[in-house]
């Protein structure tokens, strides 16, 4: 019997979750304005212009890559939550455990960056042979006497 | 202005504008050659291209030998090395004004010529994209022409019919 009341908080949490979810749905159904949104409101917002040219169905794969990378590293953060709750009882063993876990994760990130998954390709920037410039080193002052013509 | 050295090619009538700017009055076919000769002569930048509709001021001053017409295209060239300006006024014709485009000499004039076409209806031959630039696409008429109404809405208290 004793084990039953261990699970009471989980039950409470479940009920609260359901209540909150159902409650917000019901309230918004009750209080939301009845009007069906007009077609202008349904149209995509593109800075005030309703576009004629349909956006293409295919878009570059790099968007997908970035999304996947984010999802992977987001899930890894989820593993840290249970650790954060009990890390005092786990002591040194917990610390070593979590360090190895994060090193492996970080290794994955390093591999991805070295593979160039995060770089967006050839951007037309003037970078080669550029000294580190400050706002006064990059300009030339031409006063009235030197007056170099263009 | 310093010395007035830009030599206009022969056959182009020139005159002295206000503040010693040099004004040239080429005919539409001398127009393109004159501008390219100015460009090789050191006028690196074309500052401004604008149209003027002389419907109500037809009898303006023009050097003799220049046949006045209703539309005029005014081009402003600037030489950075010589610190000088030149104004080229070409008579562009009466009802359907047409002048060659300066796009291949100065790419910067593309938008200015589109504006002259949009507001005054002056056509520019072999202009890359002669469409309207300031007015909405299906706008009829060219607003800056003198015969185009000002489009004024009668203000409620001035011209609107009184209650009685």
């Amino acid at each position: 019997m004793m084990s039953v009341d261990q699970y009471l908080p989980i039950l409470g949490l479940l009920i609260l979750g359901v209540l909150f979810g159902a409650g917000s749905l019901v309230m918004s159904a009750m209080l939301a304005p009845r009007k069906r949104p007009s077609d202008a409101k349904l149209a995509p917002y593109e800075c005030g212009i309703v576009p004629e040219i349909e956006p293409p169905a295919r878009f570059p794969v790099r968007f997908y890559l970035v999304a996947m990378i984010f999802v992977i590293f987001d899930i890894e953060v989820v593993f840290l939550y249970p650790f954060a709750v009990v890390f005092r009882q786990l002591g040194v063993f917990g610390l070593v455990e979590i360090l190895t876990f994060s090193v492996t994760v970080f290794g994955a990130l390093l591999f991805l960056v070295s593979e160039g998954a995060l770089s967006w390709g050839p951007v037309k920037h003037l970078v080669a042979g550029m000294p580190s410039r400050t706002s006064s080193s990059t300009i030339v002052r031409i006063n009235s006497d030197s007056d170099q013509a263009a | 202005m310093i010395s007035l050295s830009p030599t206009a090619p022969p056959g182009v009538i020139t005159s002295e504008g206000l503040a010693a700017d040099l004004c040239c009055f080429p005919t539409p076919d001398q127009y393109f050659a004159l501008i390219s000769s100015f460009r090789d002569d050191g006028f690196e930048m074309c500052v401004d291209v604008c149209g003027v509709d002389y419907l109500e001021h037809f009898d303006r001053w023009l050097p003799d030998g220049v046949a006045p017409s209703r539309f005029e295209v005014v081009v402003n060239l600037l030489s950075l090395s010589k610190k000088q300006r030149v104004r080229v006024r070409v008579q562009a014709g009466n009802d359907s004004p047409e002048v060659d485009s300066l796009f291949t000499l100065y790419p910067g004039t593309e938008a200015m010529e589109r504006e002259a076409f949009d507001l005054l209806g002056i056509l520019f031959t072999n202009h890359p994209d002669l469409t309207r630039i300031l007015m909405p696409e299906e706008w009829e008429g060219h607003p800056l022409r003198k015969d185009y109404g000002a489009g004024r809405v009668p203000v409620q208290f001035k011209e609107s019919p009184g209650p009685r």
Partner: protein
Amino acid sequence: MSDPTIRTAERIELLTAETSEGAQELQRRESTPTNELGREVGAVLRLDGLTLDPTSVDFDRRDDETMIINMGPSHPSTHGVLRLMLELDGEFVLRTKPVIGYLHTGMEKTGEELSYIQGATNVTRMDYLSPVINELCFSMAVEKLLDIEVPARAVWIRMLMSELNRISSHLVWMATNGMDLGASSMMIYGLRERELILALFEKTAGLRLNLNYVRPGGVAADLPDGWQDDVLVICDTIFARTFEYDELLTGQPIFRNRMIGVAPLTAEEALALGVTGPLLRSTGVAWDLRRAMPYLAYDEVDFDVIVGTYGDNFDRYAIRLNEIRESIRIVRQCIEKMPSGDYRSQDSKVTPPPRARIGESMEALIHHFKLFTEGFHVPAGEVYSAVESPRGEIGCYIVSDGGPKPYRLHVRGPSFVNLQAVSLLMRGGSMSDTITVISTIDPVMGEVDR
């Protein structure tokens, strides 16, 4: 406004038709003529006559792989109602076409209906970040036509006010440029400093913005007494604050990555496109109208022309930051050398008699009435006068037919021409670079669309 009788499918077409601009927009590649394609891709003619070769485009995508989107009229970072149509390959910009005209106010048509005295109010609303400089350009053109002399004090007051206006315009640029790059605290600092200058404008001309202060023949009113210490306070605080901005922005890695080396422009491309102002000076061409073709009393004042080296965004930022300091230097010299005397030309053709005399003499009353109702007549002729505005050369071309109203008023807006360099600067850059490019060109849509 959904009209129930129209079925939904038609309704979307109606909406699309209303907001679409047909031929002015960016079309698909195969339906664009090659010359226009070259223009949108930003291929610029070299000065040595190399013809435009659109096929020299380095990398290209088929039509169904690219996406054409609108960075449209109501966008937080387009500095007003500029609509940019971008053809994107993922994050990279292949083609750009600015669609403008969303703030077209028909000012040149209204300019033909207002007399010369009223003309300044119309012109001052064109470049609403530097109103004094618009009025200066208009007034100098009218004075050239009338060929009257402006008294020395009016010349120096005009120079003082236009330099203060240049500082306030560059401060707004620093503010919005910081905001565009995410440094929103820069927005607060920039606008806070600007309030000092606007307070002086309000004290002098009665208005913070669009102050109809510089008029043909001189200045509307004399400077308020005790203006010297006001201006000194402005100069000292803003000069010290520019070093704070420098510290805030220049060392910041995000700012540097997004500004250094982005959107370079070479001198010959700038000249071919007719670009002027900080954009031209960033490419190394030392062209500043205040130095090259001095007007007002700029030849008696000592200041430096700031010229960049690489022609990229960082240079334009550095030029504007240092131009604030140069303008402060000019303002300080204006305080010392401000001559006394009348602030408006005594030529009765242009200046109405002072109000006091109206009560006494009948002719003064008639003269005053005639000047303000019909306006003074300007001899027939045409003139082009250009002035250095914070964005470049603003020129005013007036054709007068001898009447009280200008026959044709055309204002050459520097941002209108600088904006055409957008397709060249954005080519090959990423989507976030377009924000910095628009910001460093600093277009003011009032003067682009006139």
